């Protein structure tokens, strides 16, 4: 991709996104937020930030879920604005970003259909970033066969479904396996797309996507140890990219305990301290796998770190992906703070990941 023409088609949006980025909450904001005694205080604190009076319509008492919902709404508004102004390959890039959420939504509908629920009720549970115009059409399906066909016809996810699943699989496999199979296909496809865009987008995105893939691989390994998931099935869920691919993945596919996972991770300097360091868990002594419990936190920190790096480069699309990720982390942080305040667990307030 030529930097010379970038500003002509996407310069405006990059400007916007960097503006949005400046609106992310900083450590200073978080510090003052942790001083809040009640959710009302928190709402007041937030009105001094980019969020403004986003909770103005919420009738007291404010539920903690309201923070998450309204904050997500804001992210969605921003994203939709970007999407509607984007053209050409950026538009496609942004579409790709939504596929991940779309997978979750379709999985939700599949779950509903499998259990013969009224899937229309599920529409409001879907992640707003993953909605698509034809989604209500999927609700018409009354059995899995129909749903499978509608997914193929109506959604951009068709290649992933066609590539790795049959209608029968939807019926038989564990829903989590389906989800992870799709996600794996999606990650690989997204990566291919980014590579096709050329440098610098491909450079930035490959960092982010590699980590995303490694993170999934590690998570799946750690979470499937000791469950009914067979090792062949496990290996099939690993995305074929990332820094652990291919040797690391092979070892992980056969790993039986955390120590084997650790030895694999030792080979990647950046990942080395994932399995060590602090964990703030309540049950750290009576669970043997306490080393793995801090893992998620390390992942979040590393993700934020990588996504921050994306902003160091200009003339590339990575910033868009990164912004959405960072914003999501911010929403999680907000929800966490709200939960801590609501449930009187102030000592856990520090567990959030500060972004800037």
């Amino acid at each position: 991709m030529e930097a010379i023409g970038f500003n002509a088609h996407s310069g405006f949006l990059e400007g916007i996104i960097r503006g949005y980025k400046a609106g992310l909450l900083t450590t200073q904001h978080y510090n003052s937020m942790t001083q809040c005694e009640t959710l009302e205080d928190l709402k007041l604190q937030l009105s001094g930030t980019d969020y403004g009076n986003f909770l103005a319509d919420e009738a007291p008492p404010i539920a903690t879920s309201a923070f998450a919902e309204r904050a997500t709404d804001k992210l969605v508004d921003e994203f939709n604005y970007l999407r509607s102004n984007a053209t050409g390959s950026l538009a496609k890039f942004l579409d790709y970003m939504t596929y991940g959420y779309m997978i979750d939504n379709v999985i939700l509908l599949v779950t509903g259909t499998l259990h013969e629920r009224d899937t229309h009720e599920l529409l409001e549970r879907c992640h707003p970033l993953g909605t698509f115009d034809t989604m209500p059409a999927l609700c018409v399906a009354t059995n899995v066969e129909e749903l499978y066909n509608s997914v193929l016809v109506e959604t951009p996810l068709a290649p992933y479904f066609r590539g790795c699943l049959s209608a029968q699989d939807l019926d038989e496999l564990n829903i989590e396996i389906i989800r992870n199979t799709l996600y794996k296909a999606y990650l690989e496809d997204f990566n291919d797309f980014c590579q096709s865009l050329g440098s610098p987008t491909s450079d930035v995105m490959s960092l982010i996507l590699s980590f995303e893939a490694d993170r999934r691989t590690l998570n799946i390994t750690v979470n499937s140890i000791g469950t009914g998931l067979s090792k062949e099935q496990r290996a099939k869920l690993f995305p074929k990219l990332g820094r652990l691919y291919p040797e690391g993945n092979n070892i992980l596919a056969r790993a039986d305990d955390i120590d084997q996972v650790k030895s694999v991770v030792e080979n990647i300097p950046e990942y080395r301290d994932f399995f060590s360091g602090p964990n703030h868990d309540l049950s750290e002594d009576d669970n043997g796998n306490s080393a793995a419990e801090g893992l998620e936190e390390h992942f979040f920190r590393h993700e934020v770190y990588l996504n921050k790096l994306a902003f160091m480069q200009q003339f590339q699309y990575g910033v868009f992906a990164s912004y959405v990720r960072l914003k999501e982390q911010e929403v999680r942080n907000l929800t966490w703070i709200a939960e801590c305040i609501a449930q009187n667990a102030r000592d856990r307030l520090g567990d959030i990941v500060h972004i800037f």
Partner: protein
Amino acid sequence: MASKDRVFIATIGDEDTITGVLLAGTGHINDKGKKNFLIVDSKTTSSTIESAFEEYTSREDIAILLINQHIAEQIRPLVDGHTAAFPAVLEIPSKTHAFDPSKDSVLKRVRKIFGD
């Protein structure tokens, strides 16, 4: 009273409570497709709760019925009216509503007996 057939824990609660107890493994769907839990949100009517409460208290396979206290408040006369030993009706707090001992139907009986 064939108490040995009573093996399940039924729950009437908000979504978070239900998710939690289901994670613990109490959820059960019997042959007739009947669940042993009811999720109550702002749209659930009192009559739905009442009929679920009556169903769970009359079912022969339920040993314990957990109910969020703020939901029990909505059908208080029914809860207070349940004095049988089986199933045991237990009022539990929810995430958003802390436990208030003065509203609990059993603790009310305790207080009545000791006269304070």
